[in-house]
């Protein structure tokens, strides 16, 4: 892994990578807590620009990065909440940085979305996209849950059971607000109709 980023290393071998990252001394700089969340927001902006126009335009990249920045913001707020009271508060910038390394599987999935909209002919683009959303999305969902479990287990030194609990709490604290922000007015009728059937 000499030439690859730690993000790539975490994506492929999360337990080993997080163990190594936890073991190495790191002095957080002023950008430590910000650089990866900002990159995630930038990547979201790029993905939206690429899926809409097939290329990067400043107009869409900046606007979409800002309007979707609530995703990394909520992820980190949820992380801060689960870390609160566990004695990790002092090294939060470094922990945020290492935690965000675990988002690389989602990043690759997002780039896949960009690639689909850029490369697949319009007649098939939504069919391929929905397959990627369902199959690829579920795989990344499961793998990223394992990656985050490894983060809590290896970096925060939680026991297996505690790491699973913290993972679940983090998921609930972050994903519920994110999903509600994205589509609350569509989710409620869908649930009501499903419940009524």
């Amino acid at each position: 892994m000499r030439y690859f980023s730690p993000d790539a290393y975490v994506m492929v071998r999360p337990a080993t990578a997080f163990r190594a990252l936890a073991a190495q001394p790191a002095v957080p700089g002023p950008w430590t807590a910000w650089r990866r969340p900002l990159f995630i927001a930038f990547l979201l902006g790029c993905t939206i620009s690429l899926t809409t126009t097939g290329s990067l335009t400043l107009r869409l990249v900046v606007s979409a990065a800002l309007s979707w920045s609530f995703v990394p913001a909520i992820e980190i707020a949820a992380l801060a909440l689960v870390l609160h009271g566990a004695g990790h508060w002092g090294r939060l910038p470094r922990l945020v940085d290492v935690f965000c390394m675990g988002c690389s599987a989602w990043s690759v999935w997002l780039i896949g979305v960009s690639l689909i909209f850029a490369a697949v002919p319009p007649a098939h683009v939504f069919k391929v996209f929905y397959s990627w959303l369902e199959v690829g999305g579920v795989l990344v969902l499961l793998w990223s849950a394992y990656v985050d479990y490894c983060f809590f287990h290896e970096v925060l030194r939680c026991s297996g059971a505690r790491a699973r609990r913290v993972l679940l709490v983090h998921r609930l604290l972050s994903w519920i607000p994110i999903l509600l922000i994205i589509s609350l007015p569509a989710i409620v009728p869908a649930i009501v109709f499903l419940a009524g059937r």
Partner: protein
Amino acid sequence: MSVRLLLIGAMLTAALATRTWHDLRRQTPRVVLNGYQALAVVFHVHTHPLSSAALTPWDVVTEAQRAQLDAIAVTPHNHVWAAKMARWFSGLIGGPIVLVGEEISASQCDLLAVGIDQTIAWGRRALRTIGDIRRQGGIAIAAHPLPGDWPGCDEAVARLDGSEVVHPLVFGNDENAAALRAFNARGEMAAIGDTDFHIGQFGMARTYVFARERSAEAIVEAVRARRTVVYDRGRAYGDPALVQLAADDGRVPRMAADAAPRRLGTVDGAVAIAGLIAAILFGSRERTTLER
């Protein structure tokens, strides 16, 4: 800064600069036929947040300009505030006409309410929902009425102003295309071509509305009078007299052919994707233990 980071930065900057340079506002062609303005309209646009879409209300306005649309109806799920924001922003920048609307989850039938001003309650039967739309002076369009929606939409067929006959669901799926056409044929409804924008190419399908003037009110009146034409891969739907009029003139079918969805891929887009992959795989280094 390392050479690696400089290279990644250069790739992304080049991709961004190339397209931003060409991302200029394009003039929307104006066509007048028999006294009617032929306006390119998309009646089904979702926005972010709160409507499962990628773009904000202001971004859909600028995208509509880029896609050479004369008007859009912003139709978020079960609310209208995003549509009002889009209308305000478009007025501010001199953008396309924005009609305020919403996609209402009626009982087993999704309806587009266009030309309204207040949010309409969801979950009611289609007929009652259409009554609420009409009371606000709006038009009701059946959104992607595939056979699963027919039981809920059927009772409202006589009161619907239009139904989507061309929609991204029909691309590459002849069964869906036939179902949307069959539903449209069940009543006297205007043919509507819509993008149902959540993500992807803006304006993939559009409706040519033959309006008396360039205004939101005139567009609503034209749909109510069934003065619409929709094109899909060489076929035309809608008012037969207007289809013939447009065919004889030739400009509207040419505009439709120019606007037909095509593969988005570009060289600068490929460079951007390569740059993003490189940023993830090689963007940062943690020395010491990870190098062992």
